[in-house]
């Protein structure tokens, strides 16, 4: 490494160490940029693909109010995808490249969205557990070192505070309902609890990007610390519902001041991430189809703009 590059990197790290934000036009190491493009775009892809499992229930929501709430939530996810794509674009990667990476499988998204939504209870469990886990992560990322990412996280957290609550409310109502409804709530909890824990990623010792991301303060807390926070906060919520906790090894550890928990099925995690979940192919093919079916809109818009430009030029002449 030549000395000027070395100096730049030292100055960069000093800025980070002093809790300064990095802004788009600042010098940054190529790896920092790459790492951010990967993380922020995949975060954006998760928001976008995350619309599918919930969108599946909009037409079947049990009341007009529930339909309106679910629509509002899915609409938020689209907006959050946009904030994150825009933040990624400040790093010099065009949006078309991001979409292509998603559609060709080069970029990943949260594997939780490869699980199907089979019952209305799943919509409750997703809002409560999946958004709950996402919020844990996102609250932490409000302090990430890259300015545009941090600011989009602040906006997202503010808007998202209703997502978890509306999900929990669905669960409360099911859990208070008929035995069949309560069973539906239990079944959704059982199926979504473990995948929600997987959302925090591999253990710190096995996480490919963690150490460098922590040093650059792209990540502010480790996967395992965030997961622990989520496990702890979820226990009283499950108790209030009167449901059985899916983790049979869960036990309070007085010494640590945290719950000890059972091991995640990492084989399942790897299998779903590598394309073998229930819905991986369906999610991407649906995204591709929606993109292709929207082509005529983009073409019409372009044709209109060309026509208007020509008209303005001819009246100006």
């Amino acid at each position, binding site marked *: 490494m030549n000395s000027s590059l070395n100096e730049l990197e030292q100055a960069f790290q000093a800025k980070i160490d002093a809790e*300064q934000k990095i802004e788009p036009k600042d010098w940054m190491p190529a790896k920092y940029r790459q790492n951010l493009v990967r993380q922020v775009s995949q975060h954006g892809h998760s928001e976008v693909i995350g619309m599918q499992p919930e969108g599946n229930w909009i037409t079947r929501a049990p009341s007009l109010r529930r339909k309106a709430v679910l629509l509002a939530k899915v609409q938020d996810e689209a907006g959050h995808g946009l904030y994150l794509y825009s933040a990624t674009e400040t790093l010099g990667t065009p949006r078309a490249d991001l979409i292509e990476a998603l559609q060709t499988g080069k970029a990943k998204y949260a594997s939780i969205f490869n699980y199907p939504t089979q019952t209305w209870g799943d919509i409750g469990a997703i809002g409560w557990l999946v958004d709950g886990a996402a919020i844990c992560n996102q609250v932490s990322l409000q302090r990430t070192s890259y300015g545009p990412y941090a*600011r989009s996280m602040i906006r997202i957290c503010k808007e998202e505070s*209703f997502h*978890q609550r*509306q999900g*929990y409310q669905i669960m409360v109502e099911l859990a208070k309902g008929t035995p069949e409804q309560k069973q539906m709530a239990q079944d959704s909890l059982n199926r979504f609890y473990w995948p929600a824990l997987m959302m925090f990623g591999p253990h710190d010792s096995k996480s490919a990007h963690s150490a460098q991301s922590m040093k650059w303060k792209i990540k502010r807390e480790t996967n395992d610390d965030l997961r622990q926070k989520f496990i702890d906060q979820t226990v*009283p919520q499950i108790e*209030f519902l009167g449901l059985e906790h899916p983790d049979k090894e869960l036990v309070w550890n007085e010494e640590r001041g945290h719950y000890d928990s059972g091991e995640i099925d990492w084989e399942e995690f790897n299998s779903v991430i590598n394309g073998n979940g229930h819905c991986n192919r369906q999610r991407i093919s649906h995204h591709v189809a929606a993109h292709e079916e929207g082509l005529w809109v983009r073409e019409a818009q372009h044709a209109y703009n060309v026509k208007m430009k020509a008209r303005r030029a001819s009246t100006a002449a």
Partner: protein
Amino acid sequence: MSTEQLELFEVFIRSSRGLDHKHVGSLHAEDHAHAVDYARDCYTRRNEGVSIWVVKSSDICSSQEDDAPEFFDPSDDKPYRHATYYPLPKEVGNM
């Protein structure tokens, strides 16, 4: 633009690293580069900022203040977009 009437620019200042650029006002300038210099002299005489953006006022497209009630009313009847719409049992803590 004549020498009497220079181009109008809108000025945005980032007060410290990590915050958004905020609109602070406008000024007349010959071009973008001058507008940045003038904005520094005009709006940051007391270290108000660490970064300046200037945009030609004519490039800004805005909604109409007079139409604001009708323009923004789609969100008037959607209280369920707010977390406070969902009461939480005390036992479960914050969410």
